[in-house]
């Protein structure tokens, strides 16, 4: 590169500078091309949610809401018990994430220290199974236990998503921690529990944060479990929003507003832990079912 660059410079500096500029412009154009679909779809979603019905039906489409209106959001809250579904989603995803942390963090520690990496294969196979297939047996069992239409059943089902994520991430994280400190505690007569509680766990806090957020996001995003197992009162937000599509007159504004309500918390979290998601996902390709 350097050899050719100096050769070009001696030939014609302006020509070289021009080519360099063109290359730069081409590069930025390609950046715009790959990033714009993501931006445009989200902006369009926002635009639809902030316009009145007339502007939403206009052709050619109105892109910038003028003036922006929050009527769509108000309508979603008034006509649907969105507040309740929001609460259901928080309880289900929060509950399933909490249980997953309680059992998954120690499990990740155990797996990392025993070197039972094979256990994570089980998790990979679980990832390959379609979510619906877990539902058939669980549906039957909950029917038998009279747990259908309860939030408890939903929390239990969401463990299918949250436990593998937490175990997988924590096993990977504990493996990166040095063992020497824990061994020193053991030699001094400390129990394995105390090495976990007072040495490994405090060091693993960043891993716990990432595991918590990813488990919560993938549980929050899940649609089928809430759709199949929940009744009118126990629906999670994605299932409730889908029901708006089927049972009501399709009008763009409120639908877009509802879609934003579902996905906004997730997008905010994503921006928060962008770096960790990049690191976590490039390693294992962790994704909920």
């Amino acid at each position, binding site marked *: 590169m350097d*050899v050719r660059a100096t050769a070009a410079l001696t030939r014609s500096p302006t020509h070289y500078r021009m080519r360099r500029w063109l290359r730069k412009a081409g*590069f930025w154009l390609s*950046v715009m091309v*790959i*990033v714009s679909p*993501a931006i445009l*779809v*989200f902006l*369009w979603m926002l635009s639809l949610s902030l316009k009145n019905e007339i502007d*939403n039906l206009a*052709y*050619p*489409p109105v892109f910038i809401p003028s003036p922006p209106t929050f009527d769509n959001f108000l309508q979603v809250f008034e006509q649907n018990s969105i507040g309740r579904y929001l609460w259901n989603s928080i309880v289900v995803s929060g509950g399933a994430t909490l249980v997953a942390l*309680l*059992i998954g963090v*120690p*499990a990740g*520690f*155990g797996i990392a220290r*025993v070197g039972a990496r094979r*256990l994570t294969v089980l998790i990979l196979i679980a990832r*390959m*199974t*379609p*979510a*619906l*297939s*877990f*539902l*058939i*047996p*669980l549906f039957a069992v909950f029917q038998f236990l009279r747990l259908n239409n309860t939030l408890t059943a939903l929390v239990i089902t969401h463990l299918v998503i949250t*436990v*593998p994520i937490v*175990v997988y991430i924590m096993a990977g994280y504990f493996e990166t921690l040095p063992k020497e400190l824990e061994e020193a505690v053991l030699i001094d007569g400390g*129990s*394995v529990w105390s090495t*976990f509680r007072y040495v490994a766990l405090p060091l693993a806090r960043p891993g716990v944060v990432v595991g918590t957020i990813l488990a919560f996001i993938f549980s929050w*995003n899940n*649609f*089928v479990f809430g759709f*199949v197992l929940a009744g009118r009162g126990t629906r999670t937000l*994605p*299932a409730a*929003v*889908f029901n708006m599509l089927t049972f009501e007159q399709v009008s763009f504004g409120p639908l*877009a507003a509802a*879609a934003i309500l*579902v996905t906004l918390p*997730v*997008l905010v979290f*994503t*921006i928060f832990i*962008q*770096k960790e998601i*990049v690191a976590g*996902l*490039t390693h294992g*390709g962790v*994704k909920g079912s």
Partner: protein
Amino acid sequence: MSTNATLPARLAPFLARRRRSYYLFIAPALVTIGAVIIFPWLYTLWMSAFDWTLGSAAHYVGFGNYEKLFGNQRFGEAVLHTFYFTALAVAAPLLLGTAAAMIFHREFPFRGVLRGIFIMPMMATPVAVALVWTMMFHPQQGVLNYLLSLVGLPPSLWVYSPTLVIPSLVLVEIWHWTPLVMLIVLGGLAALPTEPYESARLDGASEWQLFRYITLPLVAPFIAVAAVIRTIDALKTFDTIYVITGGGPGTASETINIYLYLQAFAFYNIGTASAVVVVFFVIVLALALLLLHVREKTKWM
């Protein structure tokens, strides 16, 4: 010095005894996974041998459900739709994701922010994504037909056309999951050595040659991993297809997963649905193993 060398050796049995207590840490998670993941697998396998509609008595039919399934034209079509959808929904994101990874591998201003924006679709709630695309696909009021008209193309029926419905759904899939491929390939690029590039440049290799003969072979294993993950996910796609088309128009976009949903939770044919799950799982496993095999091969390329 000598005591230091023997210390770990003397500790070995002591630490081995400790190993047992580590299993106590794993036990609760194992029990949970057994209950919510392994039990459903076994139960499904067992139920696939019964003719059972929820609410009535179950009869043992052996492989009867499988025989019926293989003779069922609708199921056969669902399998074909799934393969068609999967082929497109794997190939396109792989190409685009690799290209995007090449771009994000470079240093440029605002790279972190732009990368953050780029991966947002991947984290967005599938139902919300599906809703927005449903509105964009609308033949009269959808923004996509307006965009087509801007470049002088005739309006399309998108998901309302039996022939275009699967490519249109793939469009959503590309938008949704290209970021995941990008991240995996980006991880591979970050691990590349710099020496081959330096010597190739000295030999006067062009940028394209650098990519074709150095970068591509070296990141091939990562692209293979992305291909496996993408294949599994594409086969499993449910949310977006169900929300946008419900398998329609007619059964034009009915994939195995949609067929499975209908059998299980619309018709309550638990036996048939269980057989579908088992067949489905075999397909996913076979394809994943095939791709992993290809990966082993490409490692030495």
